[in-house]
């Protein structure tokens, strides 16, 4: 106790999570990135309230109109309102990004815990992961998508599979260090069942790095989804998504560049926000994570 300063010793013990949050909020990357992400999320949730019209309504009399009071961002090739499509497009991107991140982490954690803890599984699992990682992410995703008809589900599966090995590698590396810690040895020696050791004693150490990796996966999934849609192999064309809008707009790029630039701007801003948030979290949560990635 002599090491503690008098004021500190008198304070209520604060939870470490509270400390982390207050530290994270003071980080400029977290602040800027978080604000951008929050704005985009609110835009996606409140889409119907933001002066939008039906984003898929076709109006042949209003084709390729310039921005005006009626249509803030103008209209596209089919007379659809570009502003409404951009706002609703945020929903597609966020749904894809979040679902891919959550699914990839779920499977990655399961496989990584097993590979890291049970030595017998390690070699086989890691060779398979090495092999999967040798196939460039984007190619694997387009190959998977092209097998089946375009749908939100297929795109999510196709984007998730190439991300799983990254999660597995990270979780495994954490498990390998943590499993030698005295408190894990202690748990083993008092006969704690293995699943409980994995969940209660080992998994908590993976949360901080996974939060950071998760934000990067989310950003990369949004980018890859847009690239897939851009190539015509992503989300079905009737869904308003930024990638689809850019893809449709590129035929008329020389006439109406805004059809490409407006959705691009929101796409880049969203990814920028998530990346900044991830960078900030990485710096506040644990500087050592940076090296593992």
């Amino acid at each position: 106790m002599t090491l503690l300063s008098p004021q500190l010793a008198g304070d209520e013990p604060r939870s470490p999570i509270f400390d982390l949050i207050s530290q994270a909020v003071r980080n400029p990357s977290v602040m800027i990135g978080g604000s951008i992400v929050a704005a985009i999320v609110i835009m996606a949730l409140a889409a119907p309230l933001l002066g939008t019209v039906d984003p898929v309504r076709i109006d042949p009399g209003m084709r390729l109109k310039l921005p005006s009071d009626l249509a803030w961002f103008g209209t596209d090739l089919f007379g659809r309102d570009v502003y409404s499509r951009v706002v609703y497009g945020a929903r597609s991107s966020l749904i894809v990004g979040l679902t891919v991140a959550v699914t990839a982490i779920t499977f990655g954690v399961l496989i990584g815990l097993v590979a890291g803890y049970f030595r017998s599984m390690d070699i086989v699992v890691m060779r398979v992961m090495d092999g999967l990682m040798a196939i460039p992410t984007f190619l694997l995703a387009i190959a998977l998508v092209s097998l089946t008809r375009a749908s939100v589900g297929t795109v999510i599966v196709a984007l998730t599979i190439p991300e799983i090995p990254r999660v597995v590698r990270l979780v495994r590396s954490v498990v390998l260090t943590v499993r030698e810690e005295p408190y894990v040895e202690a748990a083993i020696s008092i006969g704690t069942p293995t699943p409980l050791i994995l969940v209660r004693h080992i998994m908590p150490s993976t949360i901080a790095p996974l939060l950071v990796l998760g934000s990067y996966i989310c950003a990369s999934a949004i980018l890859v989804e847009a690239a897939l849609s851009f190539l015509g192999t992503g989300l079905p064309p009737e869904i308003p998504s930024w990638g689809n809008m850019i893809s449709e707009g590129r035929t008329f790029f020389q006439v109406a560049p805004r059809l490409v630039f407006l959705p691009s701007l929101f796409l880049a801003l969203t990814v920028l926000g998530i990346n900044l948030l991830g960078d900030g979290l990485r710096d506040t949560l644990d500087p050592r994570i940076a090296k593992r990635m």
Partner: protein
Amino acid sequence: MLAFVAKRTLAVIPVMVVVSVVVFLLLRLSPGDPALVIAGDNADAEALQRIRTALGLDQPLATQFIIWMGNTLSGDLGTSIFTNLPVTELILQRVEPTLSLALTTMLFAISVAVPLGTVAGATAGSWLDRTLMAVSVVGFSVPAFVLGYCMIYLFSLKFGWLPVQGFTSISEGVLPFLRSIALPTVTLGLAYMVLIARITRASVLEMMGEDFIRTARAKGVAERLVITHHALRNAAIPILTVIGIGVALLISGVVVIETVFNIPGIGRLVVDAILKRDYPVIQGVILLFSAVYVLINLAIDIGYALLDPRVRY
């Protein structure tokens, strides 16, 4: 040294086996009948049967794999369903634009990123360092195809300096070649450059705190030499690693950039194959790109051992 090279080379085999199995299974494990996937919904029974026989889909899975693997190892990647030409021939026809683009991009990205990253790392906290880091986050976030359109808009449509799209072979003159490849190179190279610059900065910065840097300074070595000879040299391994890993970024980028700039390369080939469901072509290109990626990283690993004796042990 030889033992290290042999060990590292042998480690490529399991990786490539897994890659082949995945590529092979992609089509076979897809929901529904692969022949139907390839032929589309409107195919008649005769066409389906023809595809099944052509791909050997009427054989057991293990037999199919062994036949396919044997063919692949002997350099036969199958026949395109759409054009009826051998896949290897189709790929060879398209190698030049893709290889030119990849090489100019690597050259451009490395020659810009390493000096910038080194200066930023050596002067961490300076305005140059901060600007570079800020630009690098943006560089990661702007999708390559968006950047490509911005470039076309600015340099081709507004200023009219460069051709809008297309590819001119180097055999038709160096200047037309450079003009046609300049925008795709910068577009494709940005993310790669940012990645290399960030790692260069981080590893140079880490080296700057080491004892041997203080020793070098203490004995009066000029600061410029301390940075290039002592810090950068010792930071070389992570930089080389990321140059190798970043090749995956280039491969993914090539597919998109060749579409944006209408370059008739392997990336365009695979996108067309995917839109037409020409499966042997897709498999062939994925195998080729993965093999290139694995081999480049093998070469880099062996490169370390030459550079740095510590790695060999």
